[in-house]
C-alpha cells in the first residue's frame, strides 16, 4: 500500500469511526432530555429508568467520540501537514468555536452523569439539555469546516499564496448551511432508527414491554420526522452541489456525457474504463430537475471536466445510490408509522412494522457513511476544492501504511468492545429496571 493511499484510508477510517460515535453522542442527549422531562412531570419511574439506561450508553459513546475526535485534531496535521499549514488560519474559526462547545459539553456531561440526587432536579435536567445543544453546535461547526473544503471562501489565492484571509467569511462559506442541515437530519434519523430498532427488538422479545415501548416512542418520533424531512434537505444539497461542484454531481450520477435534459440513473453498474453505465433504470429529465429545478435543463457531465480533475466515479455513484435507496426506505417506514398513529392503532399490534424498525437498526448509519463517501470521495482529487490537491498535502513521512494497519486494529477492537458493552447493558435491563428491583437498585445509587 503506498503512503498516499494509506494516509487517505487512515483518515477515512478515523472519520468514519468518529462520525458514528459523535452522532450518537450528539443525538441521544435530546432523547434523554425528553424522557427526563417526562419523569420530572409525571413521576413515572419508568421514564427515570429509561433516562438512566440511555445515559450509560451516552457515557460510553461520548467518551469514545471524544477520544476519537481528539485523535482527529492531531491526525489533520499528522497526515496532511501541508494542508493544515495553509488552511489552519483560514478555516480555524469553526474549530475554535467548536473547542468551546465541546468543552461545555464535557462539563455539562460531568454534571449530568454524576448529578443524580446531588443537584437541583431542574438544574440537573438543564445540564442534560446543555449536553445536547452544545453537542449539536459542535457538529454544525465541524461540518462548516468541512464545507469550506468543498466551497473554499474567505481568502484570495494569488500565485500560490493565500492572501486577505477572513476566517468569518470562510466559516460562512456557501456550503455550510446545506451540509450542516443534511448532516443534522441524518444524525437524528440514523440514531433515532437505531435506538427505536433496539427497543422494537426487545418489544418483540416481550421483555419489559412498558419500558421498551415508552423508549421506542421517544426515539421513533425523532427518527420518522427527520427521515421525512431529509429528502427536502437532500434536494437543497443536490442543487447546491450542481452549482458549486459539477464534477461531484456528475460522479454521483455517473453522468459521463453532458446532456439536456439529463436522466436520473437508479442503480446500474459503472464501467470506469469505457465510461459507461449498464443495467440502470433511467428516469428521463429527472436529473435535470433534481439539479436545476427544470426538467429540460442541461446538466454538466464528466466530459466537460478535465481528466485530472475528475473524482472516482464508481465509488461516488454507488455510495450515492446506497444513501438515496436507504433514505427512501426509511421514509416508507416512517410513513407506515404515521398512518398507524393517524388511525390510532398501537404499533404493538403491528409486528411487521416493529420488524421493519429492527431491520433499520444499522441502515441509517450505512446511509450516513455512504453520504460522507459521496461528499469526500466526490471532492477528490482536491483537498481544498480547486485550490490544493490531496496528494500535495500528504505528510512526507514514509511508512504510513503501518500506522493505518495499527489504527485499523485499534478501531476495530473498540467497535467490538462497545457492541459487547451495549449488549451487556441491554441484557441487564430486566435485572436493573424491572419493577421489583427498582426500589433496591436506586437506593444503592
Amino acid at each position: 500500500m503506498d503512503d498516499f493511499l494509506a494516509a487517505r484510508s487512515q483518515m477515512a477510517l478515523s472519520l468514519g469511526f468518529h462520525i458514528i460515535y459523535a452522532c450518537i453522542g450528539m443525538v441521544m442527549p435530546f432523547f434523554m432530555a425528553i424522557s427526563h422531562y417526562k419523569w420530572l412531570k409525571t413521576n413515572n419511574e419508568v421514564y427515570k429508568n429509561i433516562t438512566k439506561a440511555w445515559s450509560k450508553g451516552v457515557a460510553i459513546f461520548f467518551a469514545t467520540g471524544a477520544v476519537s475526535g481528539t485523535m482527529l485534531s492531531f491526525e489533520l496535521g499528522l497526515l496532511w501537514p501541508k494542508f493544515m499549514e495553509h488552511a489552519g488560519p483560514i478555516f480555524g474559526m469553526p474549530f475554535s468555536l467548536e473547542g468551546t462547545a465541546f468543552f461545555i459539553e464535557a462539563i455539562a456531561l460531568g454534571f449530568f452523569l454524576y448529578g443524580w440526587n446531588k443537584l437541583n432536579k431542574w438544574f440537573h435536567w438543564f445540564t442534560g439539555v446543555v449536553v445536547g445543544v452544545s453537542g449539536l453546535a459542535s457538529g454544525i461547526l465541524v461540518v462548516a469546516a468541512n464545507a469550506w473544503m468543498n466551497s473554499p471562501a474567505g481568502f484570495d489565492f494569488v500565485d500560490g499564496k493565500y492572501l486577505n484571509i477572513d476566517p468569518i467569511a470562510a466559516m460562512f462559506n456557501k456550503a455550510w448551511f446545506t451540509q450542516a442541515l443534511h448532516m443534522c437530519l441524518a444524525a437524528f434519523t440514523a440514531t433515532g432508527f437505531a435506538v427505536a430498532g433496539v427497543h422494537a427488538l426487545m418489544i418483540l422479545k416481550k421483555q419489559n414491554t412498558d419500558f421498551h415501548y415508552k423508549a421506542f416512542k421517544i426515539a421513533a418520533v425523532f427518527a420518522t420526522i427527520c427521515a421525512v424531512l431529509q429528502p427536502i434537505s437532500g434536494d437543497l444539497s443536490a442543487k447546491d452541489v450542481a452549482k458549486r461542484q459539477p464534477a461531484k454531481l456528475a460522479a454521483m450520477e455517473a453522468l459521463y456525457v453532458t446532456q439536456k435534459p439529463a436522466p436520473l440513473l437508479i442503480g446500474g453498474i459503472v464501467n470506469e474504463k469505457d465510461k459507461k453505465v449498464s443495467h440502470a433504470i433511467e428516469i428521463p429529465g429527472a436529473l435535470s430537475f433534481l439539479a436545476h429545478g427544470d426538467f429540460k435543463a442541461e446538466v454538466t457531465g464528466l466530459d466537460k471536466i478535465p481528466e485530472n480533475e475528475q473524482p472516482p466515479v464508481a465509488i461516488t455513484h454507488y455510495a450515492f445510490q446506497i444513501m438515496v435507496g436507504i433514505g427512501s426506505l426509511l421514509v416508507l417506514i416512517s410513513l407506515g408509522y404515521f398512518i398507524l398513529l393517524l388511525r390510532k392503532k398501537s404499533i404493538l399490534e403491528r409486528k411487521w412494522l416493529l420488524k421493519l424498525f429492527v431491520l433499520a437498526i444499522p441502515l441509517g448509519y450505512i446511509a450516513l457513511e455512504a453520504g460522507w463517501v459521496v461528499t469526500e470521495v466526490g471532492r477528490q482529487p482536491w483537498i481544498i476544492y480547486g485550490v490544493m490537491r490531496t496528494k500535495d498535502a500528504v505528510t512526507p513521512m514514509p511508512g504510513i501504511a503501518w500506522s493505518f494497519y495499527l489504527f485499523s486494529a485499534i478501531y476495530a477492537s473498540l467497535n467490538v468492545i462497545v457492541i459487547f458493552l451495549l449488549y451487556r447493558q441491554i441484557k441487564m435491563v430486566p435485572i436493573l429496571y424491572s419493577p421489583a428491583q427498582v426500589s433496591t437498585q436506586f437506593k444503592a445509587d
Partner: protein
Amino acid sequence: MDYVIIAFLCLAILLYFLLGGADFGAGIIELFTSQKNRSKTRKTMNQAIGPIWEANHMWLIIAIVILFVAFPKIYTTMSVHLHIPLAIMLIGIIARGTAFVFRHYDAVKDQMQEVYNKIFIYSSFITPLFLGIIAGSVISGQIDTQAKDFASAYVFSWLNWFSIAVGLFTVALCGFLAAIYLIGESKADEDKKRFIKKAEFMNVAAVIFGAVVFTAAYFENVPLMTWVFENEVGLIAVVLASLSLILLWYLLLKGKTKVLRVLAGFQVTMILVAISYAHFPNFIRLKAGGAISLYDSIAPVKTVESLGWALVLGSFLILPFLGYLFYKFQQKEE
C-alpha cells in the same frame, strides 16, 4: 491580540499539565499501588475524577486548536517530525479514556474489569511519558527539518536522552499532583495515609528525575542551565519552587490537604516557568540552529483577532461552569 492568544496557549498548556496531569497521575498511582490496595485506590479515584476527567482533557484540545489556527508552522513541524511519539500518545489517550469509561459502565462486573484496569493503568503511564517526550523534543534542538534519512528526520528528533528524561520527569510530576489531589478526596484516614505516602514517593521521584533531566541536558548540549539560572525570572521561579518544596513537606507531614493542592500546583507552575521563560518566544529549537518562534509563525491579523475573541468569549462560558463543576463534586472535608 497576539498576546491574548499566547496567554491562552500558555494557560491551556499549564492547565492541561496540572489538571490533565493529575488525571493521568491517578492512573500512575494505581499502577504503583500494591495489588491489595488497588481496589480502594480505584474507588476514591472513580469518585474524584469521574465527573471531571473529560473536562480536564479539553485543555489539550484548546491548546492544539490554538496551535493549528494561530501557529500553523509550529503545529505542522511538530506533526511531521514528532509523528511517531504523537501517534503513540494518541493511542494512549484513546486507550485510557475508553478503558476508564468502559470499566465504569460495564453492566456486568466480571473478569473483563481486570482487562480494563490493565489498559487503564499502563496507558496512564505511557501517555504522559510521551507527552513529556514530545515537550522535551520541542526544546531539545534535535528536530532536523533538513534531514534526508528516515532515522534523523523522524526518530532521533525525539529518541534522545534529554527527551526521555523529560518524559519520566513528567510522569513523576503527574503522579505527585494526583497523589496530592487524592489526599483531599479520600474519606478514610487509612486512604489519606496511603496517598500521603504516594505523594512523598512521587515527590522524591520527581526530584531525582529532575536531576536526570539536567544531566541529560548537559550531555545532549541543551542549554538548560543557562535558561534556568542565568536570568532573574528563571532564578526566582527556581527559588520559589524550592522554598515551596520545604513548606510542602511540612504540610504533608501535618496532613493539611487543601493548601497542599495550591502549593503543588504552584510548584509545578514555577518549574514550567523556569524552564520556558528564557526560551520564550521561541517554541521549537531546530537542529540546524535557530528556532521557530511564536512571533514569526503567527497567523494573519484577522485570524488572530477572531480566534482571540472566540477564546475570550468562550472562557466566559467555560470558566464559571467549570468552576462550579469542581466545587460541586469535591469531597467535603469531614
